[in-house]
Every structure is written in structure tokens, then in C-alpha cells.
């Protein structure tokens, strides 16, 4: 039944395919509804204001963009570092990267005050702005990773895949550096202003991207009634563990650095101890759910044989990633700008107070739309093209573990 349309499926499941597509489509539609409502009434309907200028939509958008660059890492390990296990997964990795970037960028654009001026954003560039550089990197990412996918999937162009893959790898490192620097270059705000932002975003992208990849891969194998080879499972879960540990390390160094600078103490006290929801999301969300729990799960003896445990760990990493973005983006703005160090400040414009932020349903809808777009694109791509990893087990034996 309709077998010609499901190259990748062991047995065709059109009902499930349409159900998934419908589900994703509904999420995207609700997001569009939110967009048009906000476009008509203005951002007055959101919880964002002149103090918290970037809110939940940006948490979703930046997470998707960072994870998009990270998910390409799977392909890079294959093409750049020659690991066969990962090379077999390069097409899926590239496709996920494009889908997630599309989702993240859509949220970013739909949240603009003047989304109708997208053409302006594409034609007027201030090259001193790291934000403008990001736009160039995003567009270039689509072109380069698109080309990379073609070289991976077209037999005649296969020989170019290593070169294009290498360019894609360099490009994605530049892209995440630029994304981290959007925050790192904010010299006036104690919560950002740090050269560590760029490398920290890169290492976090490795973890978030691989977690998304493992999740999608596991679902695809289940969908096709296939079991992931244990050797592959072990290698990939160990790699995820290393990335989580590295992310935790960067988080510790970032906060230790702030703790060393006397002028940053108050901000650290806010995030680590007294920041209410931000402190809670930092410790419970970013550190425990996104770091310690998945590490325990991944390195417990049972995980060697359990795709379920690895999948739960991957889900936790994604939740932790969202938490990290919330603490970084919203928490960084909740802490007030200090105009006069050593003085207590107050005004009608909320100087000197911890800024409050209560996101509205419109912001959730807009943010989830990005996830919906990435999901819909993935469902269609997986259905229409051959993205299920094709492992050559003999070659795997020669691959360094």
C-alpha cells in the first residue's frame, strides 16, 4: 500500500505518518495564529516589556539554533574525523540541522516588532553588528549544509562530501561562536559580557544536538522495528556523557569567573541563591535535570543495553538545555542594569529592581511553532528520503571506538 512513497519505512504506515504530520501542522498553525494576533495587537499581549525585552520566544529560538548547529556535529565526526559510525548518520544529521535552524529562525523572525521588514533585515547590513553576522551565518548554513546533503546523497558527488563537510564544520563553529557572542558582546550587562559565552555555547550545542539526534534516531529505529546495535548505542551515549560533562565544566568556570570579580558578586548571588524562579531553574533544570541526572543515567551499567535509558537521558538534556537558555536569556535581563555602582537606584522605569516576567500563552505558541516546524520538516524528510542510518558493521570493527 503506497509503498513507493515510503522508501525509508520497513512497512508503510501512512496513517501514522499523516497523524504525525497533522499534529505538527496543528502546532505550526497555532503558532501562525499567535503571530498574526501579535502582529495586529502588538507585543502588548506578551509578557515581554521594556525590561525583559527578549523572552520565551527567544529561549525556544536560540535553543533550536544552537541545537541545530550541534546536531551537525554527528556528520562532522564522520566527514571530518573519518568515523564510519558517524558517517552513516551524516545525512540524518544534516537534515535535522536544517530543519531545526528553520524552526529557530522562524520564531526569531515571527517575534520581530516589524516582521514585515524581513527584506530590510536581508538587505541592510551593519557589519559591526554580531547580529548581522549571525544572519549571514544562518543563510550560509542553509546553503552549505544543503550542498553537503546533496554530496552525501548523490553517488556522483560523493567524493566532494569530505571537503564540503569540512567547510560545513568550520561554518557551524563560526555560527555558534557568533550566536554565543550575541550575548558575550553585551558589555553593559553583568549577566552576559564574557568571552566564555562563545565556547560555552559551542560545547553546549554539542550536547543539545547529540541529544536531539539520539532521540530522533531511536524513534526512527522503533518506527521501523529495528534495534540499534549495542556497540553504536554505547559509543554514542558515552559521547553524549562527555559533552554533558564538558558543558557542566564550562558552566562552573563561567560562574567561578564571575565570583572572582567583586563587581559581579551580586549577579552571582542572584542567579545562584536569591533569584527565585531563575535560581530554581538553574539548579533543578540546568544542573540536575540537564547535567547530573543524565550523566548518572548514561554511565549506569544498565544504559549499555537500554535504548530507553539513553532516550530518557537525551530528553533530560533537552529539558536542561531549555532551562539553560531561560536562565541565560531571561535571568540575565531580570537582574537590573547597574548605572551607579555603590548606589541604590529607583525610578518609574524600574531601575534597581529585579524585573519580573510572566510569559503569556502567545509566547508559548510562538515558541512551540519553531519546534513544530522542525518536527514537520523532519517527518516529511524522513518519509520522502532515505535518512535511516545504513551501518556497515564490518567497517565499524575497524573504526576506533
Amino acid at each position, binding site marked *: 500500500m503506497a509503498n513507493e512513497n515510503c522508501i525509508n519505512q520497513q512497512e508503510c504506515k501512512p496513517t501514522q505518518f499523516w497523524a504525525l504530520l497533522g499534529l505538527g501542522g496543528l502546532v505550526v498553525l497555532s503558532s501562525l495564529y499567535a503571530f498574526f494576533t501579535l502582529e495586529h*495587537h*502588538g*507585543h*502588548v499581549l506578551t509578557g515581554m*516589556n*521594556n*525590561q525583559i*525585552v*527578549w523572552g520565551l520566544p527567544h529561549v525556544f529560538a536560540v535553543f533550536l539554533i544552537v541545537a541545530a548547529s550541534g546536531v551537525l556535529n554527528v556528520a562532522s565526526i564522520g566527514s571530518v574525523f573519518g568515523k564510519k559510525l558517524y558517517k552513516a548518520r551524516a545525512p540524518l544529521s544534516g537534515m535535522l540541522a536544517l530543519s531545526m535552524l528553520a524552526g529557530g529562525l522562524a520564531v526569531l523572525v515571527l517575534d*520581530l*516588532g*516589524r*516582521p514585515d*521588514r*524581513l527584506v*530590510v*533585515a536581508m538587505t*541592510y*547590513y*551593519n557589519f*559591526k*553588528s*554580531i*547580529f*548581522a553576522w*549571525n*544572519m549571514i551565518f544562518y543563510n550560509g548554513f542553509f546553503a552549505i549544509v544543503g550542498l553537503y546533503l546533496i554530496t552525501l546523497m548523490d553517488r556522483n558527488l560523493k567524493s566532494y562530501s569530505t571537503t564540503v563537510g569540512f567547510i560545513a564544520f568550520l561554518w557551524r563553529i563560526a555560527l555558534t561562536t557568533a550566536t554565543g557572542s*550575541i550575548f558575550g*558582546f*553585551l*558589555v*553593559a*550587562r553583568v549577566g552576559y559580557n564574557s568571552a566564555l559565552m562563545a565556547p560555552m555555547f559551542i560545547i553546549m550545542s554539542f550536547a543539545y544536538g547529540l541529544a536531539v539526534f539520539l532521540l530522533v534516531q531511536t524513534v526512527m529505529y522503533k518506527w521501523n522495528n529495528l534495534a540499534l546495535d549495542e556497540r553504536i548505542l554505547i559509543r554514542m551515549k558515552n559521547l553524549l556523557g562527555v559533552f554533558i560533562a564538558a558543558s557542566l565544566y564550562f558552566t562552573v568556570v563561567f560562574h567561578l569567573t564571575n565570583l572572582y570579580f567583586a563587581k559581579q558578586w551580586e549577579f552571582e548571588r542572584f542567579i545562584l541563591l536569591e533569584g527565585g524562579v531563575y535560581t530554581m531553574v538553574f539548579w533543578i533544570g540546568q544542573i540536575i535535570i540537564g547535567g547530573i541526572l543524565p550523566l548518572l543515567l548514561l554511565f549506569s551499567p544498565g544504559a549499555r543495553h537500554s535504548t530507553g535509558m539513553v532516550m530518557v537521558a537525551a530528553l533530560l538534556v533537552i529539558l536542561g538545555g531549555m532551562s539553560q537558555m531561560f536562565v541565560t536569556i531571561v535571568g540575565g*535581563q531580570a537582574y537590573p*542594569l547597574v*548605572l*551607579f555602582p*555603590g*548606589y*541604590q*537606584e*529607583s*525610578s*518609574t*522605569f*524600574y*531601575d534597581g529592581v529585579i*524585573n*519580573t516576567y510572566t510569559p503569556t500563552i502567545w509566547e508559548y505558541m510562538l515558541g512551540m511553532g519553531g519546534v513544530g516546524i522542525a518536527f514537520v520538516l523532519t517527518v516529511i524528510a524522513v518519509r520522502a528520503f532515505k535518512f535511516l542510518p545504513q551501518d556497515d558493521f564490518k567497517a565499524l570493527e575497524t573504526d576506533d571506538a
Partner: protein
Amino acid sequence: MNDTVENKVEERRNFLKTGAVVAAATVAPGVLMYGVAHSRAPEEAASGNVRWGMLIDSSKCGDGCNDCVTACNTENGLSGETGPQDTQYIRKLDIKDLRNGRVHSLPMLCQHCENPPCVDVCPTGASMKRADGIVLVDRHICIGCRYCMMACPYKARSFVHEPLTDQNPEVPRGKGCVESCTFCVQRVDRDENPACVDACNSNGHMAMLFGDLNDPQSPVSLAMQTQPSTEVRADLRLNTGVRYQGI
């Protein structure tokens, strides 16, 4: 005969009158322009020889006085409401020295930096600095990304969160764009003071001086030469156009 002579005299008078009018019409603009040399014609570009700036003496600023804020709201067509999503170009900031308890009250507005972070970060170049040092938002190319608001160290910018009505035609604003103090650029181009400065002068506080920082003889420069002044967040080295005294 007499008639013809009178006609000729009349003609000569008319000729002289017309000639005088034409000559006056030709010379007058030059003479007038000389007299109003600081006022800028719309087609004339802002001059890089001028740097507009402001000196605020917090010791003269009246505690509880809000006249500068009210004048700004009226001039720029702002609602004057102070909710978290409402626009404020200028606000009265109360600060208290935590070491000795000394309090100051001062107006805080866009500091019109020489090296403005908002201009650096703006992806489209909508945030821009005029040749005469006034930092503005080009509302035709602002996409409403709010990155400039993240970057401004002085919290000087606001985002228009909802549709606007009854705007001042001289100060067009729009939903979805970022805005901030313009030094009342429309008044400055007519050689007038910003509305806040005039309000402060007319109530007798005289706490705000506005003028050309590049002109050593301007009142603002002279005041800065005689007394020390402070730059807010001087550590960032933005060389602000607004300076404070008395803090």
C-alpha cells in the same frame, strides 16, 4: 508734454522700486542665513563640527520635580504612563549612596554616546548617530529586534508595544519599533533647546544645560571647564554626550 515727462518719471520710479525688491529678494536670504547660522535647513546635512551635549547639575535638580519628564512626554506625544511596557524617553532617577546615605535625584535619558553600543549592535543600521552626535533610530529600517535595548547600558530605550494614535506629526512613532530620547532633534534643528531643558529653565531650576560641546565658548562647555563633571558608566569609555555634576 508735461504728461510725457511725468510718465517717464513714473516709469523710472517703478523701475527703481522693482529693482530694489529684486535686489532685496536676492540678498536677503544670505543676510538672514548669516543671522540664523545655527538653524539648519531640512536639506542641509547635520554638521560634524558640532557635537550636541548636555550637562545636568543634580544639586539643582528639584526633588520630586518632574517637569522635564512632563515636557518630554508632551513634545514627543508619549502617554506618560509608566507601566512596564510604556515608553519613557526620560525618567527621574533617585539614587542613594549606600556608604553614606546621601541621596540625589537626576534625570536619566539617552546619553548620546560618541561610541554608542546600540549603534554597534543594530543589525540593519537603524540605530545611528548623526554627524552632530545625536543618536537616533531610523524608523524606516528598524525591524524591532530589540538588540539595541539589550546593549544600552543606560536602559534608555523603549519598544512600542501597541498601536499608537494622536501622534505629534513632528515626532512620528510606530508599533514594533524601538525609540528613545532624540534630544528633541526637531527643536535642535530649529536652534531651540530640547523640551526638557526649556522646562527646567522655565521653572527656575536651571539644572540642565544644552549646547555644542565642540564650541569652547558655549555655556555647556564653559560650565564643564570650571567644574568637574561625571560620565555615567565611565568604565565603558563610551564618551557620553550627557554629563552630570553634583554626584
